[in-house]
């Protein structure tokens, strides 16, 4: 049987997570990608270009644009019987929608999958990533969310066919009152190759701009600790950790961050970790591949100047 992937998108563009989800489940069956939303032509085009897709299924309806669980679940339930696996990325839409979907299908979902070991065998982290559970499921179908950062993306260049889906009236229970989108020109945090993270030690919103300056210099995404977000120095969607975003960049530069286990939960997939901290005993300094003991307020400007001098570019 085939695999249904719910595309993750912001109505404008396809999230980079979807190409990783497709790669994660490639091999489990023919892959159909479902795009829900009104005015999502570009998302459809991008999804159809993903390599290894059988077809893209599209249901255009303004009712889907809230991406609410009440609106999305009935469509997924309607399609479920044709698929052995129903899959999406473990972003906020997937986390919100898929457990509700699973309950409707009377399926125990498996979420935040970090390794696919077979059609019904998966690894998922528990206890803030301090343990990995390998589970097998003998259910008729699997409802999964994939931790996108644990997988590489499939390439684009294909041209899968696009099929419209007829659907009933969309359930509209939740009304969107306001959306605050963090405006920023830095790369997507969840899939970035380099991330610069800042902690409470920056001391203020102005202090946090030092972190952003270094990130911009390296074309990196910006991350933050819960403490920095709680203090109002950084927006909530920059939080990295057990309750924030999970990242797996090639390089993570952690500045003024102690390394609480809830923060470490979000960075376990990082290939190389660099730490800048005044405290040589901080857990993150101990964990780092490269550490500099020093004050961030003098170190960051000096580091940016030095990077300019040697001419580093990604």
């Amino acid at each position, binding site marked *: 049987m085939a695999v249904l992937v719910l595309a993750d998108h912001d109505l404008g563009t396809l999230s980079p997570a979807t190409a990783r989800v497709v790669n994660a489940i490639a091999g489990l069956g023919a892959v159909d990608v479902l795009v829900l939303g009104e005015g999502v032509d570009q998302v459809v085009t991008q999804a159809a270009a993903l390599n290894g897709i059988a077809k893209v299924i599209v249901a255009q309806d303004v009712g889907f644009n809230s991406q609410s*669980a009440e609106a999305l679940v009935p469509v997924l339930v309607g399609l479920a019987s044709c698929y052995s696996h129903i899959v999406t990325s473990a972003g*906020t839409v997937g986390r919100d929608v898929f*457990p509700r979907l699973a309950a409707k299908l009377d399926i125990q979902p498996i979420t935040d999958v970090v390794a696919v070991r077979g059609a019904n065998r998966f690894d998922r982290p*528990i206890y803030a*990533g301090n343990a990995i559970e390998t*589970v*097998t499921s003998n259910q008729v179908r699997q409802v999964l969310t994939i931790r996108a950062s644990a997988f590489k993306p499939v390439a684009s260049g294909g041209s899968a066919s696009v099929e419209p889906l007829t659907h009933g009236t969309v359930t509209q229970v939740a009304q969107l009152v306001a959306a605050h989108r963090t405006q920023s020109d830095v790369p997507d945090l969840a899939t970035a190759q380099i991330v610069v993270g800042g902690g409470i030690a920056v001391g203020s919103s102005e202090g946090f701009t030092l972190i952003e300056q270094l990130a911009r210099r390296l074309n990196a995404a910006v991350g933050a600790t819960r403490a920095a977000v709680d203090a109002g120095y950084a927006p909530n969607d920059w939080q990295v950790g057990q309750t924030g975003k999970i990242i797996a960049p090639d390089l993570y530069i952690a500045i003024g961050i102690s390394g609480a286990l809830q923060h470490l939960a979000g960075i376990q997939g990082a290939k190389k970790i660099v730490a800048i901290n005044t405290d040589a005993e901080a857990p993150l300094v101990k964990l780092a591949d490269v550490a*500099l003991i020093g004050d961030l307020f003098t170190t960051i400007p000096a580091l940016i100047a030095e990077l300019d*001098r040697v001419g*580093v570019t990604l």
Partner: protein
Amino acid sequence: MKILVAVKRVVDHNVRIRVRPDGTGVETTGVRMSMNPFCKHAVEAAVQLAEAGQADEIVVVSIGPKAANDVILTALAMGAHRGILIETDAALETLTIAKLLAKVVAEEAPDLVLLGKQAVDDDSNHVGQMLAGLTDLPQATFASEIKLEGGTLSVTREVDYGRATIAIPLPAIVTADLRLNTPRNAALPMVMKARQKPLAVRSAAEFGVDLTPRLVVEKVSPPPERVAGRTVGSVSELAGAIAAEISGMEAL
């Protein structure tokens, strides 16, 4: 208005857990247990609604072993009125927990159900959404602000792109994120008073829910260890290390 709050007893979030060497699970014997942090925020939100005169009864429910009494008492000390312990020594899956909670919702008919967004042991982030599915109620997950105006609940949710505020009709299911509020520490007189509040103990078996797990946990392993690193003595050395790292990256 009546509020139902679901609270879970978990390994305390400050404990550094250890995976059993035989791979059968995480060592929990002799480990400090406490209320799941997210559930504390859910209880606090309920108590604040009651203090604002917007709720008149708060019922807390926990599913777990006899010892889960502790977390119910904590919630009662924070200001909840009545507790229900659904007793079981089995490790239940989130679907089963949601089914048991759906039975409680059917019995209690609350106007609002508050849960934590995730339990810090299994890190599932399922139960609220599943309960909403089973009861066909609207859901608002990852809440960082809750306001009740008339019969409408306005909830600000923390999402991947920032924040979204939605309005949903009651009854509804809401899951709490950490920035929702600052949970209180109950003062000693409240802790004493909590012991006088009603607490019903019922067996999980009496709800007519199939408790058999759907998944087989084959093994539990520790995450891969990281290799030890080095400390550099100067900013220029650090810049060199970063430059070397970047030049070795394959372009995406």
